[in-house]
């Protein structure tokens, strides 16, 4: 149940990435993967490397995913921007 809550939260937050310029590494799909992986990985970490079961899932479990999703998307964005800048800096042949 914990994974379901994290996944939903990651997916929910990903929807708002559309307001940002499309500089994500891998584009909107890269942002999707980053949000989901970030949400699940962070939730897993803050819950002591365990997945809360049905009895242990509560409101905070869902909120656990927010930092992870944001971090994931931020990293994806930064990597995308870095690659874009590196590509733009290459001299045209």
């Amino acid at each position: 149940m914990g994974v379901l809550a994290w996944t939903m939260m990651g997916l929910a937050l990903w929807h708002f990435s559309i307001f940002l310029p499309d500089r994500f590494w891998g584009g909107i799909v890269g942002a999707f993967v980053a949000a989901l992986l970030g949400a699940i990985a962070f939730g897993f970490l803050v819950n002591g490397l365990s997945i809360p079961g049905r009895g242990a899932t509560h409101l905070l479990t869902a909120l656990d995913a927010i930092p992870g999703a944001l971090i994931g998307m931020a990293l994806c964005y930064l990597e995308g921007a870095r690659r874009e800048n590196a590509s733009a800096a290459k001299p045209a042949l």
Partner: protein
Amino acid sequence: MSARVRNLAILGVVALLLVAAGVGIATQKTILGLDLKGGVELVYQGRPTAAQPVVTQDALDRAVEIMRQRVDQLGALNPDIQRSGRAQLAVALPGVSDLQRAIRLVGTPAQLVFYDWETSVLGPDNKPVIDGINADDPTADAISQGGGFRQTGISLYAAVKQAAKRPASKPGVRLGPQYWAFAPKSHSFLAGPADTREELRGLRGYRAGAQVLVIQPGTVVLQAVTGKGENPIAGNRPQDAQWYVLKDQPRLLGKDVKDPKQDFDGGTGGTGNPDVTFKFTGTGRREFQDVTRAIAQRGQNIVSQAYPKGVNQNFAIALDNTLISVASIDRNQYPDGIDGANGAQISGSFTIQEAQDLAQLIKLGALPINLKLISTSNVSATLGKQALNQGLVAGGAGFLVVVLFLLLFYRVLGLIAALALGVYAVYFFALIKLIPITLTLPGIAGLILTIGVAADANIVIFERVKEEARAGKSVPAAIAAGYKKGLTAIIDANVVTIMTAFILFILATSEVKGFAFTLGIGTIVSLFTAVMATQAILGTMGRSRLISRPSALGAKGGGRRITFDFMGASRWFFSFSGVILLVGALAIGGRGLHFGIDFESGTRLQAALTKPADENSIRSLLSPLGYSDAKIQKFSNKQFGSNAFQITAKIAPEKVTRVRDALASRFGISSNARFQAQSVGPTFGQTVANSAVVAIIASLIVISLYIALRFEWKYAVPVLIALMHDLLITAGVYSLTGREVTTSTVAALLTILGYSLYDTIIVFDRVRENVPRMPRAAFSQIVNRSMSEVLTRSLATSFCTLLPILALLLFGGTTLKDFAFALLVGVASGAYSSIFIASPVLTHWKERESVYVARRHRIEAEHGTVPAYPTGRAGETVDLDSARPVSRRGRLTTPQEETLSRGEFESLKRDLVLDDEPPKPRPARPAPRRRATAVAEPPPEAAEPRPEGNGDGHAPDEAENDGMVARPPKPKKPRNRRHGRNR
């Protein structure tokens, strides 16, 4: 074969099949499942035994065969035993009402075991009692001569604890260790036996901190011979019985006996009670003589203070961990053992019915594997009939509303579609009878859903026909083009539905299998009726006055062109979905999902009571039975009336009858038929959940592969994201509304996987079609154009599917409503996500490709911004059909015999004369804008940013257009514009 002949041939086949279907319907019986007919369903999980260490398919087959013969004893009408999942067997017994007897007969292992009593049974010191007898141990003497009755037995805890002290040794009957759980202080029985520690934790009664005892292979605990009135086959309350610990060293097994039959203990000294007599096989006879000889001689040789002249020793018979009889072998009468030629008898405190059942079980032989009962369901015939009526009403209502919608929206075409739907219904009903398909409530849900699927196929084609007619084609030409162009999308969408249904059928539990089967078969049949039959009808009447004008098709006027900027507004739609998912995630975290007993395990009873009752009075009745924590809810519906109660508790399947009897005696149960029970073990819920996860993953993989193959791999990713969106939104809605999640919900979720793709495929199919046709447009413009073209049809198909689902929701029973609610949310979400999630994701992703970056830069350079729809040169489209090089030989008056019959050619000529204006001389200005601009005025390539990564500087999908620029086609005669695309 000309088109007319082909159409007539198809109509002939349709008519013939209709006649055959009518005959089939009239002559064959409909097989109803037990949810519609009433009866008992038992689901078993196969477990290995010492003789069968691995549950193989062969072992399951043999078990099914034995169970089938046992089922015949119950007098079930059309019993059905199916495998489901891994090593599971679902036994449906329509018409059977005695749940307890069904459990006793069907899944009992019936492992008959013969032990040399004194060398096998163990004393408190864990040594065989024969050692104690020789050492004058009075306890050993008592056990030896106690006849296996409860007086000399010990408590269950003492027996298990004693047995747990013995090391593992060579297994006899039981293969692996056996786990039991007891209360740590009181030592009262909690749960067991289980094959694994995990399984033990999942059993009802187990609680954290329980004392777990493990009996290693080579030792068994057997329930003492039971007294009159107790069930000799299965111990209902193990803690109430007395037990013995034995070394698991059987001397004979059930396979060594033959011809068992119920008899009476007659003759001199006989009690006259019912018993079971049997004979031995050749091997059994020899072994029986050997073992009784050894027992007799041992009795003669015992010399102790208590028995200076020896003492008779015993031979024990056990059936499935219960001692049936411990018989004494007279050492003086049979010093050389008993010849098994005359067989033997099993005496016990049997009723005639019990003795008959036992004889039958022995006769049919032991099951090759152990079967663990993991789920039971008991539906009364009255309730089944009512459920059937509700299903039929829901189906009829769904059919009617779909027909009405088609008539209102498509007029004459709608009438033909309605006719095809009628044909479909007849075919499908005939197939149900002829195959035969056992009709269940989930099956009816699948059937009703396929009505929507069948109508969707017509909608996709009719919208295309209307589009072609509005573009200026004659009605026959529009019909031909509509079918030709719409077929791809229909096949793609239906193949995905069929694949999902197939996966569901392979992996799902038996209840869901019926749904998957009807959905799959229905989709295939609907392809025939909705596409081939309607095409033949329309093709035949294509020149009739009935559909001579576009208005008859509902295609009057130019149609309303939608100019909404879908891609521009996508961020708001994304935000909308994001907010819904955010709320859903919080709801999942805060409220969780309300899982039904399918996942929680336990028993749910529903009973219509005749006397007034309330929750407290029912609880006071249940508390003494041990169910004080039962969840009791009053409810009312058409089936049960207004004084009905639902009780959910951890009631063992074999205790259901006891609870029913208690309810009936205190409050009365309406007509004794308005009672329904469903028991689910923890293993079953886990199996359902696991199979659902596997089915979802398998479906996603198959869908992705199909989309990647049919479209492009980049099209598959937005599809997966949209599917995930649909599933999670449905989960969120379930959490918010607190609706119960059942196996029906899981089936509906899996159906959503297949069905929500329908709209996505329609949109993507048009995008795929428009990409080469719009070689200068930005991808967002292509998608906007595609969306504007297919939005009506996408909305119409979703609406048409929602109509029968709504009928299910309004008129169906509880099970159908479960399906309908999940489908309603999923299909609505699927329609939304196709347009507002999948397409924008595809757009954003494709726009990153160099070719579309270049186009976007060029358009921005021309306009300062990228308009929502292509304008100016970006809006130029290529008529791909006419762009392809066509060899035009011969003259107009000479038909090509190999492709066109003379009749068709004449018909075509008539069509040209009647429908078209006479050809005008070629205009002096550049030829028609759509194709010729590029020819007459090649684009200034140097001024445009060139796409990257292509050796010749051309984008891969621009090849066709570039080909036109580099190699203009030869001047052709002006074509009549009604035979080309006109946008």
